[in-house]
């Protein structure tokens, strides 16, 4: 893969030997990964391998404690940034368990967030009318009712609605690096296709994705450039999309044997 000194392949994200624990238990044990601009990386692995902890480490959730290692994002030390600063720098997480926030309308959250980012980039604030136009168009892509925007954030949403709402937020906020943490879990095939449509609509040369998933089927719709297998807190194997198929066929046990070898 690339390295820092190569100006043509300056990675967007560079994770170096990161160790992290959650609840006093070591979860990530020296994880390294580089993500270049425009790349889609899929991360697969069994339960408890550290997939969600990786997402937490990258977005600055206090429930994951980094014990050593570093992460460079756009060339700067990611751990030096507060969660909202990371978000304003274009780092987006589609939550595995989207949080319900009664009282705050979806559209309010999105407008506040988008304007915080625009301000950060030195762009003018969007007024309510312009914003709503954008948001409605994005909702349309995901086949969501525009009324969804006026409902409280995830409050009383079904599981599928919550996941779709995460993708809507991603479309509106247009991140540089999006992490999808098991966004496919619990979705039926129709919903999965809609979610994939949203992700694919965003794919371009400057935008990267880390897709965390359990199941290969998502990768039929969001075709990754790289597939990594996470086991026991480290990436034990990397390859292209065929690795996912191989994994599906042989199961994780096969990999864990490989890891210990």
């Amino acid at each position, binding site marked *: 893969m690339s390295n820092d000194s190569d100006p043509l392949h300056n990675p967007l994200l560079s994770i170096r030997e990161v160790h992290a624990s959650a609840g006093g238990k070591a979860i990530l044990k020296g994880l390294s990964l580089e993500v270049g601009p425009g790349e889609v990386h899929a991360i697969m692995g069994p339960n408890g391998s550290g997939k969600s902890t990786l997402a937490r480490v990258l977005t600055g959730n206090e429930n994951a404690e980094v014990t050593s290692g570093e992460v460079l994002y756009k060339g700067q030390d990611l751990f030096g940034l507060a969660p909202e600063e990371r978000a304003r720098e274009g780092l987006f997480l589609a939550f595995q368990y989207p*949080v319900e926030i*009664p009282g705050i309308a979806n559209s309010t959250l999105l407008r506040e967030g*988008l304007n915080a980012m625009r301000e950060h980039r030195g762009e003018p604030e969007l007024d309510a009318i312009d914003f709503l136009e954008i948001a409605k168009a994005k909702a349309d892509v995901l086949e969501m009712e525009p009324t969804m925007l006026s409902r409280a954030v995830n409050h009383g949403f079904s599981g599928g609605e919550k996941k779709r709402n995460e993708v809507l937020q991603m479309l509106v906020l247009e991140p540089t690096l999006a992490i999808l943490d098991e966004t496919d879990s619990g979705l039926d095939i129709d919903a999965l296709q809609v979610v994939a449509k949203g992700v694919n609509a965003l794919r371009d040369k400057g935008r990267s994705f880390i897709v965390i998933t359990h199941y290969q089927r998502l990768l039929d719709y969001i075709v990754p450039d790289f597939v990594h297998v996470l086991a026991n807190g480290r990436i034990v194997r990397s390859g292209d999309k065929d690795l996912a198929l191989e994994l599906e066929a042989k199961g994780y046990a096969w990999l864990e044997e490989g890891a210990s070898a």
Partner: protein
Amino acid sequence: MNTPNPMTPAERPAPIDKIALNPEIDDLNQQDYKWGFVTDIEQDSLPPGLNEDTVRFISAKKKEPEWLLEWRLKAFRHWLTMTEPTWALVDYPAIDYQAVSYFAAPKSDADKPQSLDEVDPELLATYEKLGIPLAERAALAGVAVDAVFDSVSVATTFKSKLGELGIVFCSFSEAVQEHPELVRKYLGSVVPQKDNFFAALNSAVFSDGSFVYIPKGVRCPMELSTYFRINAANTGQFERTLIVAEEGSHVSYLEGCTAPMRDENQLHAAVVELVALDDATIKYSTVQNWYPGDKNGVGGIYNFVTKRGACRGARSKISWTQVETGSAITWKYPSCVLQGDDSVGEFYSVALTNNWQQADTGTKMIHIGKNTRSTIISKGISAGHGQQTYRGSVRMLKGADGARNYSQCDSLLMGDQCGAHTFPYIDVKNPTAHLEHEASTSRIGEDQIFYLNQRGLSTEDAVNLIVNGFCKEVFRELPMEFAVEAQKLLSVSLEGAVG
């Protein structure tokens, strides 16, 4: 065996064996005062202490008619037999009512800071956050400036316009002189002198306040406001407000102290009475931000207020909206007595307790007439070491056929040192009445804040957004400018409450 008729909190007399005053000390104090001032009617203030002469002095100072003096004395004599209520979930050192000064002239200009440079910078920073214009900041901070923008001048500006419509809007003292027949007719008709300990005290020693009269069929063309009144009169610990809306009239009244005051622990015992006749509507909005004490709970106002409205007429409506962020102790239950058939009572409240503030607040809705309706929306926010109690009473009496009440009381907790308590008292004596009460207590979750952080919002903005979302049903009842101010006030009051 008869079933007791349970009394609502404010009506329940405190046990007699809990009289706190020590008679010996009282005697000593009274002796001191007896010689102090009786002959010297010209003096501008009284030394601390309370006896019948104090009451006479205040009344004389205000050149009140004999009936009003008698009215005050009746209140005072009854107050002596009463004890301070103890049922509220608030805890404060015993108040020595003989150590309070019951009449003081406004501070002279010489005592005040001479420029903004002399004012506490922290206070000025708060004003700035609230978006108060520079000239007003000076006035609020008590700087001696020539043009004090207070309610008196506001009232004066519009007085002629209001006068054309027959609307009276003046200070209570002025009303006593100019409209004695109206004052005499309605004063104490909603909150009698004997109503409760603090109302009796107020009735005896009230200093001043506001009086509003809206004649039959008149819709008051502007919001009547006593925005800065409390500040202009530094001694306004015992104000008395009386609003009378005649048949078919309509008025919206705003009361606010929108800036924190720096002061010692100070007693504030106000009484507000509202009377709405047939088809009249009174909307009463309050933004209360008395000084809450500092981060360690030192200082702050003891706010013991009795507010009650009587919907005397058919189809009349009284609506209370309050945003309470100040005071060290709040004891306050704005209430509606729904006498007229089809009358409507509303109570919308946001109360915040941070640091060491304590609030025991709520409302009473007493349904007497047929098809009376009431709505209670109460939102309590506790942070720091704040303790907050919603105490509300809904009573549907025998004749209240078809009465309806809906109550919703939600509490939001921030931090693990605060408390939120919900104590409704519900009493229904009519089978055709219908009542619903819902309450919830929840916290601002770390996961919620992280989620909003991840969408680019700072923690402070995230908290404000959640709090405003929590309060929006109340904010939308406030007049626009007040709503904006209330939101800012909450965010200022909550600074540092989370992470």
